[in-house]
């Protein structure tokens, strides 16, 4: 039924006045539930009727309210909240075998329920821990994934300069240097593990002088490590150091790569 003609049909007014047939009432209630505008119309009609009634108000006698509230209090005293209890109080208590059996059964039941509850609590804790672990794993994966994505973008970018580090004989690994992306990334996959007790330091050669970029961390995510971007390096180098914190100047250079 078209909405506007439904609203204009007078059915809503009939409904508000309690004048509908059962079928009409069901229709109105359905339309009201499906269409906020019908609900709003109904509410407005009800309100108008209410205001009309208020306009015709006549004050009842002043003492009527007190009488009514008294009557209600009186009624409340005579209607206890849980009528079922009344039935039990008329029976004898302690000596009823039926009651005893019921109590025992209840006790057993509550014992069982308590155990079930404890089990459920344990399960919940375990599940909670699992969820926490999953969350951490997910976090790790997400971080790794976005790091990989960034690395891939960096490598693919035609503006990125690629510098190969070699040890005099072979190319070990590459460095990706991008002005645009402000990134200096070392691919760790080809970097050899240092000798026992030694640490690797990464250098940029600027104006003929080696400038430390930091220690190489093989735990870097995704197998590549990001360093602070340098604009005008002539070369990059890796050195082996005794000191885990590195040295002011390279001790033993194991790889070098010229930019130019």
């Amino acid at each position, binding site marked *: 039924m078209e909405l506007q003609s439904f609203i*204009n049909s*007078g059915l809503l*007014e*009939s409904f*508000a*006045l*309690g*004048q509908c047939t059962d079928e009409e009432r069901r229709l109105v209630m359905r339309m009201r539930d499906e*269409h*906020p*505008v019908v*609900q*709003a*119309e*109904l*509410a*407005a*009609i*009800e*309100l*108008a*009727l*209410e*205001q*009309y*009634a*208020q*306009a*015709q*108000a*006549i*004050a*009842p*006698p002043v003492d*009527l*309210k007190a*009488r*009514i*509230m008294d*009557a*209600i*209090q009186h*009624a*409340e005293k005579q209607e206890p909240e849980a009528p079922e209890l009344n039935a039990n109080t008329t029976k004898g208590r302690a000596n009823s075998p039926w009651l005893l059996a019921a109590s025992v059964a209840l006790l057993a039941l509550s014992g069982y329920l308590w155990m079930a509850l404890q089990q459920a609590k344990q399960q919940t804790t375990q599940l909670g821990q699992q969820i926490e672990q999953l969350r951490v794993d997910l976090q790790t994966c997400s971080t790794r994934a976005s790091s990989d994505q960034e690395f891939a973008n960096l490598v693919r970018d035609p503006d990125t300069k690629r510098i190969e580090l070699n040890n005099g004989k072979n190319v070990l690994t590459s460095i990706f240097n991008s002005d645009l992306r402000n990134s200096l990334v070392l691919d760790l996959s080809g970097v050899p593990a240092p000798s026992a007790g030694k640490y690797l330091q990464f250098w940029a050669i600027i104006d003929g002088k080696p400038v430390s970029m930091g220690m190489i961390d093989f735990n870097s995510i995704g197998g590549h490590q990001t360093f602070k971007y340098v604009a005008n390096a002539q070369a990059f180098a890796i050195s082996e150091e005794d000191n885990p914190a590195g040295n002011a100047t390279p001790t033993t250079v194991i790889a070098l790569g010229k930019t130019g």
Partner: protein
Amino acid sequence: MQDQQLIIRLQQQDQSAISTLYDAYSGALYGVVLRIVQTNELAEQVLQDTFLKAWRNGAQYDASKGRLFTWLLNIARNTAIDATRSAHFKNAQKTGNLDQIVTKAGGEVLNPDHLGLREIVSKLDEKYSSLIEMIYFKGYTQEEVAEVTGIPLGTIKTRIRYAINELRTVFGDNRAAILLAAWLIHFI
């Protein structure tokens, strides 16, 4: 928008809810009831029964079905109509004591707000106001009204819609705002 706290209290059969409802609606309800049962004595009894029932059945009030006042009015109207079937009422009818009491009672005004409302409502054409009176207040069905007045049922339905529309306009109902609000709710 209705008072949510009040509704909750009512549904929990809290006596204080009845007190609040009495303060808000007793006048409007008494006016309806008195016009049906016609004596103060009966009207007081009916009003008391109404609020007692409201208190007892408070848990059954469903805000989604309509306003608090409508719910109370239905209780009051039905209780009043039942009272008219009582011997007491039939007696009073016979002795012809009724008319004076109604006119006397009609002189009392509840509070200044309602003065304005009365004035507004008095502007409503009698052929419309009498329809609302008979159906909304006195609880006649449209069919009964058609029978009593001789007005065709179709005409009655049309007049009711017109009458309520008039009431809404007269009370400052803002239709455009309602439509807009309803449309907005739909999209939230």
